[in-house]
């Protein structure tokens, strides 16, 4: 895990973000509790986790907005708090989880205002075209829909042609169509060679956009890898969820043919990892009959990141 100095230097130019032993607490709550991560240039890296896991705090430390209580952060080879702050700010694009841009300004004026802060960048027209906001150029911010506001926030982040883009829950609360438009913009940015750090609690978003994800819980990374690798680690071809009427011990399901893992899923529900559905289903039904409980509902599906999270924490990503 700890590379020699020579290797670290050799790879420095390849690293967009490196953070080691990050700690941040608010009063007596540890929001971030010893977090390490590394994002390579050109990579899209996702921080996945439930609300309150420390994702936003982590990202805001990386953005230089919050001073950490411990650990080091390096962006594009430089640290915050020194003479490179301005240099760094010119090279990163930021979309905060919540920002209400000035209501009374138009889309064009807002983008132009942000453009004026940067010595380099693309034109306002080009940026608005990139975000599909040309027709809203003259519209005031408070007249925009949620999706349009979010695209404007991205316009403000992209107008400087950043090397590194931070997106904090970019599509939360948006309808599917608006979400897809945001994803397209992120893909376009990546095709241009940009690096992305994004937080989300949408599994499909992480699976679609990210080369690698880190699952964050209680201020720590509890699993890290490409979405496929993480799912493969579940060692399950299928996930079987069932709900029963009556008392059934987990142990009754463990060790059944084709069943690789058993997790509780709510009070009288179970979530099973299954390697061979054909073998497992009859065995499961048999075990239920033997246990004297009635099957109320059963779903089988492809495993995803959500299942990884549930397996690691015993909790769902979102409170439903």
């Amino acid at each position, binding site marked *: 895990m700890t590379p020699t100095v020579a290797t670290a230097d050799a790879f420095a130019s390849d690293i967009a973000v490196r953070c080691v032993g990050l700690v941040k607490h608010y009063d007596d709550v540890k929001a971030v509790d010893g977090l390490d991560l590394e994002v390579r240039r050109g990579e899209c890296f996702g921080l996945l986790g439930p609300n309150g896991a420390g994702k936003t705090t982590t990202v805001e430390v990386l*953005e*230089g*907005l919050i001073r950490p209580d411990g650990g080091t952060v390096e962006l594009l080879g430089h640290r915050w708090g020194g003479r490179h702050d*301005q240099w760094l*700010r*010119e090279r*990163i694009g*930021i979309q*905060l989880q*919540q*920002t*209400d*841009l*000035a209501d*009374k*300004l138009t889309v064009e*004026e807002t983008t*132009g*205002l*942000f*453009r*004026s*802060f*940067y*010595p*380099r*960048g*693309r*034109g*306002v027209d*080009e940026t608005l075209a990139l975000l599909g906001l040309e027709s809203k150029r003259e519209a*005031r911010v408070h007249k925009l829909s949620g999706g349009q506001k979010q695209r404007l926030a991205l316009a*403000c982040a992209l107008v*400087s*042609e950043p090397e590194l883009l931070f997106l904090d829950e970019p599509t939360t609360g948006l309808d599917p169509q608006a979400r897809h438009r945001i994803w397209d913009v992120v893909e376009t940015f990546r095709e241009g060679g940009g690096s992305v750090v994004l937080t989300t609690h949408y599994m499909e978003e992480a699976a679609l956009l990210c080369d690698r994800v880190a699952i964050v819980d209680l201020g720590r990374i509890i699993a890290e890898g490409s979405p496929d690798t993480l799912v493969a680690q579940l060692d399950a071809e299928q996930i079987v969820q069932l709900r029963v009427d009556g008392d059934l011990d987990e142990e009754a399901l463990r060790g059944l043919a084709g069943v690789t893992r058993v997790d509780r899923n709510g009070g009288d529900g179970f979530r099973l990892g299954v390697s061979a559905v054909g073998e497992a289903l009859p065995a499961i039904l048999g075990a239920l009959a033997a246990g004297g409980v009635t099957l109320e509902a059963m779903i089988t599906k492809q495993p995803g990141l959500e299942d990884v999270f549930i397996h690691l924490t015993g909790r769902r990503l979102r409170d439903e």
Partner: protein
Amino acid sequence: MSSRRVSHPLFELSLARLREFLREPGAVFWTFGFPVLLAIGLGIAFRAKPPSQVRVAVVGQGAEVARTVERLEGARGVKPLRLSSAEAATALRSGKVDLIVDVAPPRDPSGAASHGPPRLIYRFDTLQPESRYARLLVDDALQRALGRRDVMKADGRPVSARGSRYIDFLIPGLIGLNVMGSSMWGIGYAVVLARRRRLLKRLAATPMRRSHYLLSFMFSRIVFLAAEVALLVVFGWLAFGVAVRGSLLAVAVIALLGSLCFMGLALLVAARPESTEVASGWMNATMLPMWLLSGSFFSYERFPEAVHPLLKALPLTAFNDGLRAVINDGAALWHTWPSLAVLAAWGVGAFVLALKLFRWQ
């Protein structure tokens, strides 16, 4: 990279401020409309008019009541009203009359009604200058009517000094209130709102110079300041003939320094709060005492002498005093140096402290 020339951030920020203000009809009204309405209202209420008549209620029974009313009707500046005791008491309370003359029938030693002079009781509110004036005027009129003669000859000559009317006093006071109010609300509220909406945080994440952000508020304020002050000065001159006896440049310098001072206070108040409600509370707590104590509507000379040094140390008092010296008395700018010094001290102190305390997120 764009070939289009990108404008300076300070220019763009100031432009954004101007646009935001002009697109907020409410803000425009409270900055420009309200002070003029206030000037019109107060100007009419306190306009220079011939000494008004003293209204006197005459109560009591008997022939002497009618005779007393008759005698008062013959006196200049007195308007007697025949009322019942209850009506008179209500009228006095509500300020409809300034004095009640209670007439008792004359009595001779035998107890029978006689034709001697009546016995009067004046009922009046000793706290009201109008009431005290009415008592003296009515007493004098009745005594004269019954035959009193002056023992000494004294004539009155009316004097009317320029700039001595209430409206002359009021217009600089209103300019003071307006400059304080618009500087404080215009900056304080906008900054706290931007913080609450996390716009400050978003801006802090860009390479924008933080001083540019704060300066943009000042630049845009100064544009409106010129309009605000000019509006009240021109309105006072056209509508009420309030002339600026000193130089307009001096007015401009005092207004600019005052505005900068209040902007400093606004930044200080807005340095930390995250909610606009909390900020509004602090804003009012800062301004309300000055509304009352700084001599905008009435002279602070009415407060005990012992507290005058304290009142004069308030920035709005300094502003009002300086502006009145120039507008009403025609003082030269350097004669207002104590005011300028007070404003500069508050402004610099507040700015330095505000920059130390300012929270971007």
